[in-house]
């Protein structure tokens, strides 16, 4: 086929959107809703996963040293902790740092700190990260055996809970996304079928004048591609607006960030490009193939 022929078919596809604007609009809306349903579910899952992983990172062993331990001994304890099995990281938390953290974590009644201007009552401490969460209990016992250790806290059940939670969330989110994708495919298929059905006579006429199946399908392909592309763009901008609003609201809630790991929610800027590309690509492909496949049953003339 000549270049002018390809250009003609592509133009026909774009013109058809305008000529059949009601059906094109219906297809656009269905694609937009489908993309939003699946896209938002996927983003929800990605963030849940990130939050759970974030909470998992907090599952460290908090080690408190006796209050009156001299600094040299505190440094030695730090070295002893680093030499223990299953310890991947040891972070020293000074009295002052612990005091500041406490101030930040208390959102109400901060006035009390006006009366406490000395942080010497706070113990020195360490934040110990373990390599294998399953052996965290043994590591805690080993830490407790070190001299001048006041307390070593860990919650192995939290680690297990988070692991289980992540598994369940993955399963549920996977099922929901698959179900929504299936529903979306049916919706897209039905809408494109209705759109093509309304023009079945047009297809028959084309067949009578000797048009090949490819010649008939190409404008439908282009029409679906363009409609799907705009649906993808629409879904992207809606997601962007909603995501940013939700993100900002959550970030304003300091307590929520600490309690539920909301601090691990991914900023939209980090996923903007990939999110936009996926929306545009999936939208365009779903529109193009939905439209093309729907012509098949009318081509047998």
């Amino acid at each position: 086929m000549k270049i002018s022929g390809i250009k003609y078919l592509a133009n026909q596809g774009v013109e058809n959107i305008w000529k059949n604007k009601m059906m094109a609009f219906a297809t656009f809306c269905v694609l937009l809703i489908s993309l939003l349903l699946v896209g938002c579910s996927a983003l929800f899952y990605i963030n849940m996963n990130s939050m759970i992983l974030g909470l998992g990172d907090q599952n460290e062993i908090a080690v408190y040293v006796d209050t009156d331990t001299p600094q040299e001994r505190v440094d030695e304890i730090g070295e002893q902790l680093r030499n223990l099995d299953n310890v991947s990281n040891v972070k020293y938390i000074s009295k002052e740092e612990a005091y500041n953290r406490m101030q930040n974590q208390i959102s109400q009644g901060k006035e009390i700190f006006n009366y406490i201007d000395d942080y010497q009552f706070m113990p020195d401490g360490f934040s110990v990260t373990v390599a294998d969460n399953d052996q965290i209990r043994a590591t805690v016992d080993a830490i407790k055996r070190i001299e001048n250790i006041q307390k070593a806290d860990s919650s192995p059940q939290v680690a297990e809970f988070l692991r289980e939670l992540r598994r369940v969330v993955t399963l549920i989110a996977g099922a929901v996304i698959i179900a929504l994708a299936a529903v979306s495919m049916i919706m897209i298929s039905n809408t494109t079928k209705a759109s093509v059905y309304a023009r079945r006579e047009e297809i028959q006429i084309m067949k009578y004048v000797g048009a090949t199946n490819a010649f008939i399908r190409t404008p439908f392909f282009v029409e679906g591609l363009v409609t799907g592309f705009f649906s993808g763009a629409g879904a992207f901008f809606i997601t962007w607006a909603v995501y940013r609003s939700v993100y900002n609201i959550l970030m304003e809630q300091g307590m929520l960030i600490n309690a539920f790991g909301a601090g691990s929610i991914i900023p939209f800027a980090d996923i903007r490009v990939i999110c936009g590309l996926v929306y545009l690509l999936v939208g365009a492909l779903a529109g193009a193939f939905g439209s093309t496949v729907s012509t098949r049953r009318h081509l047998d003339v």
Partner: protein
Amino acid sequence: MVELQNVSVTYAGGVDALNNVSLKINDGDFAFVVGSSGAGKSTMIKLLLKEIDATSGVVTVNGYNLSKLKKRKIPEFRRTLGFVFQDFRLIPSMTVYENIAFVLRVLDAPLKYIRKRVPYVISLVGLHAKTNSYPDELSGGEKQRVAIARALVNDPQLIIADEPTGNIDPELSYEIVELLKGINDQGTTILMVTHEHDLVRHFGGRIINITGGEIVYDEVLTGTNAELLPEVELAQAMENAEVQQSDEYSMPAGDGSDYGNPYVDDVIAAITNTSNDNGGVE
């Protein structure tokens, strides 16, 4: 050229639509196909367009053996045809120009040729002023002229017209057939299915009557160019011939050129006798 050799079509429900039909229409012929509803006319058209396949027999159109034609070759075959339907079958979202140009687009014709050829055929059917109109803005007669222009634009060897005057005013019917006759004079074979006997009488030519899936009448008559038989009388004459055929004669299985069948003579006699008063049919 159109040739049907011992063609039968039986639909899935067991209905025999065509029964051992043989027929030959030569290049440059103008043939009317007449017959009542359910006689098998539409089946014949579908066969010729390769919309359906014959249950048995051989169908040859423009040199293509349709019984052996592969699916992927159907578009190529259809490009050698022009078609005109009762319901016009114009693409509603395209203008007159676009509807006609579309056929040449399918052929991947050069743009320069399309720009020259399309206005020419539009002027041939007298619709120059309606070039940019949409089908919805045209009258029935105008729509049919667009359909004829579309059938004509790729210079086909054969034009199949299925009841082209069925949806338009009687006075416009003559115009449409005149147009088809004019195209035929240029050498294009025309096969026109109609149930309007006065048109057939007026224009004459080869008349093929299909009844009950069989060709019961195939004869060349000279047109009168005048009002001849009242509709009822011609219909009665044809009907009588069909009754006689079923009672007394059986059609030979041939190529359709056997016009010596006695029942045909009866029909001609009936028409001639009745029409003598009106100017005579030869």
